[in-house]
């Protein structure tokens, strides 16, 4: 920096000021080089309809950050997690994003919903500084061309259906499948593509039922379902209600269909709330459950040590997101590149046959924006646990 000034200060005075300035600046610049925290910002739905997930996600990210920092951080730099509650509302999420990014230098961000991820995408592209993941598994986000700075921590909803359909085609070729989904973006997301996928696997889609959001009485839908007489019924777009009602009424009316669900229904505590209607309920889950001891999983053991009480799959999702964030940041810094959206994403895409410490049962590769791996689990009401009913299925 050119230190020429036009002030009438004497030479001695000038050099004194410069020396003082340099003395002050030196420790600051050293501090900036070595210890600058890597910030993970989060719009987390800790209240509202998604609160059960938000609290889990928050704990998961916080725990992993603690593990990393206790081990010395990433190349000496500590991770800092800055969450804000959003109540699962898009405008609150956007407000939280703006607040956190204006107060911190953020390179990694966790978003709470599909709506938020879509809204903030132009902003991410413009600033180019942030790699984002989140609670959404929307098919639309699984597009590296349109969403280059984002990724999904698991299979997208269409891939989840794909895993279920693959399992069905193996168990009962040519089976009749029914889709029951909610009238929302979440619900409608995978239906069209999954119908095509089903046909490709030789399965027939007996009926597609859409329920209005917040509907209480589903008896007319159950009648329609019964008439279609499917072998398998897949629910999507719900957390809990109205699935138990469907299953209960269906069983009462003599239906022999097997019942299945997707990620957000398949947390152990949610399925157990279904009561006896939930016995035999199946679904796809890309992670191992908290109590799973079927194989060696050092990370799961560590989680069980840190948290003695049951942690939901949302916790695992948050934990895994932080793990992938850390890995992407580490690889970027190892390559000597600065932390920005493009480099972090490129580093993420170098993840091949990566061992998640047992959280996902097989080593994972992140080619595009998603991790298309999952396993089918079935609910055992007597043991109050989810037990695996298939191998780890990978889609390509």
């Amino acid at each position: 920096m050119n230190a020429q000034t036009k002030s009438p200060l004497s030479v001695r005075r000038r050099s004194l000021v410069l020396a003082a300035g340099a003395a002050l600046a030196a420790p600051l610049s050293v501090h900036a080089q070595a210890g600058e925290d890597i910030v993970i910002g989060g719009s987390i739905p800790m209240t509202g309809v998604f609160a059960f997930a938000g609290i889990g996600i928050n704990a998961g990210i916080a725990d992993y950050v603690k593990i990393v920092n206790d081990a010395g951080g990433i190349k000496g730099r500590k991770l800092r997690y800055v969450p804000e509650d959003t109540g699962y509302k898009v405008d609150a999420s956007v407000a939280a994003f703006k607040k956190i990014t204006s107060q911190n230098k953020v390179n990694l961000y966790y978003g709470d919903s599909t709506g938020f991820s879509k809204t903030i995408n132009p902003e991410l592209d413009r600033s180019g500084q942030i790699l984002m993941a989140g609670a959404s598994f929307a098919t639309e986000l699984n597009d590296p061309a349109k969403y280059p700075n984002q990724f999904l921590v698991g299979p997208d909803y269409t891939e989840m259906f794909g895993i279920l359909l693959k399992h069905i085609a193996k168990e009962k070729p040519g089976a009749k499948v029914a889709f029951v989904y909610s009238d929302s973006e979440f619900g409608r997301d995978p239906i069209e593509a999954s119908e095509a996928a089903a046909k490709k696997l030789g399965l027939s889609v007996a009926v597609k039922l859409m329920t209005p959001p917040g509907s209480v009485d589903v008896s007319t839908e159950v009648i329609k379902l019964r008439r279609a007489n499917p072998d398998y019924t897949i629910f999507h777009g719900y957390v809990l209600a109205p699935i138990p009602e469907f299953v209960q009424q269906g069983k009462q009316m003599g239906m022999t269909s097997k019942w299945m669900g997707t990620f957000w229904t398949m947390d152990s505590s949610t399925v157990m709330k279904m009561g006896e209607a939930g016995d035999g309920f199946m679904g796809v889950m890309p992670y191992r459950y908290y109590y799973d001891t079927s194989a060696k999983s050092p990370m799961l053991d560590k989680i069980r040590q840190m948290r003695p009480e049951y942690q939901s799959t949302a916790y695992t999702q948050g934990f895994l997101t932080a793990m992938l964030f850390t890995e992407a940041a580490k690889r970027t810094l190892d390559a000597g590149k600065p932390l920005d959206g493009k480099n972090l994403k490129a580093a993420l895409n170098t993840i091949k046959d990566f061992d998640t410490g047992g959280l996902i049962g097989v080593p994972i590769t992140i080619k595009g924006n998603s991790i298309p791996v999952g396993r089918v689990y079935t609910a055992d009401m007597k043991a109050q646990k989810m037990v695996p009913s298939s191998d780890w299925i990978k889609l390509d």
Partner: protein
Amino acid sequence: MRIGTLKQSYIADAALFDSHTQKTWLGVGTALLLLFPFMASDYWLYLACLVAINVASATGLNILTGYTGLVSLGQAAFMGLGAYTVAIMQTRLGTPFLLNLVAGGIVAMLGGLVVGIPSLRVKGLYLAIATIAASFITHFLFANLKLTGGTSGLSLPPAQLFGLALDTSFRLYWVIVPVTLLMVLGAANLFRTRIGRAFIAIRDRDISAEVLGIPLLRYKLLSFGLSSFYAGVAGGLWAYFFRVVTPESFPLLMSIFFLAAIIVGGMGTILGGILGAFFMTMVPELLKLVFDLLPGGTEMTVFLSPVRTVVFGLLIVGFLVFEPHGLAEVWRRIRRFFHLWPFRS
């Protein structure tokens, strides 16, 4: 202390700002508005733009509900019409953004005229319920038409003004705030004219108004049209601000928010619309600040959202029970105190 406001001409009497003090404060206010974006962080600019959009929409609702007495729970639906129009025109036609805003306002106005047609047949709460029906029907249209992108909605590129992309809150501020100011001034001016007085007459007793020669259907439709034009423009600004429009962006809860804003602010006054929108937008932020200061850390943040809901409800109930004329009345009392000081009221 004000001794008297003596006017010598009718025009001076009908002026919006009549005293020197008012004009000076107006000058100060304008200066503050001009300086604000240079001093504020991105977050506060974001809030300022949001407040401005809400002020515009609340003023529109005030014209319909506060001044004409026609209760409407469809304000969010009209905003949605404006927002979708803007989104569709921007993405498909690429027309300049001011044109899009005006077009959004016009489409919303047409929607408002349609919804206003039952207003001759039904009144009061029945009309409110008809507007709820309108809001559901528009939601259905947004979610099921190919044109509007279905449930995933539409995302639009930033507005372009003289080749500059309006993609930060700072740049949008310079567009949103002047547009809002224009609209508010327009509304204030409306109530100095014949049309405005007709609206007030309809609110007070519409049968009497008809007897006095005010054609009810024409003026009621005009009121609906005008207020939904305001909502449409506000919706268009909203679309450029958030850049994503989905059917879930304009729920019934938003209409309730605006109705609450004008009640808390003061129905039937322009200042009420401004104060109410400002207050209701900032209260959640204030709550967040309070929660941040409370001891207990993350344990307490779980309660932020439900407490926000409770506070929202309490504000509505509280103002209706204790101060039915809203914040504008509180403001008027403060002004009166300063006008009469050192004398008491």
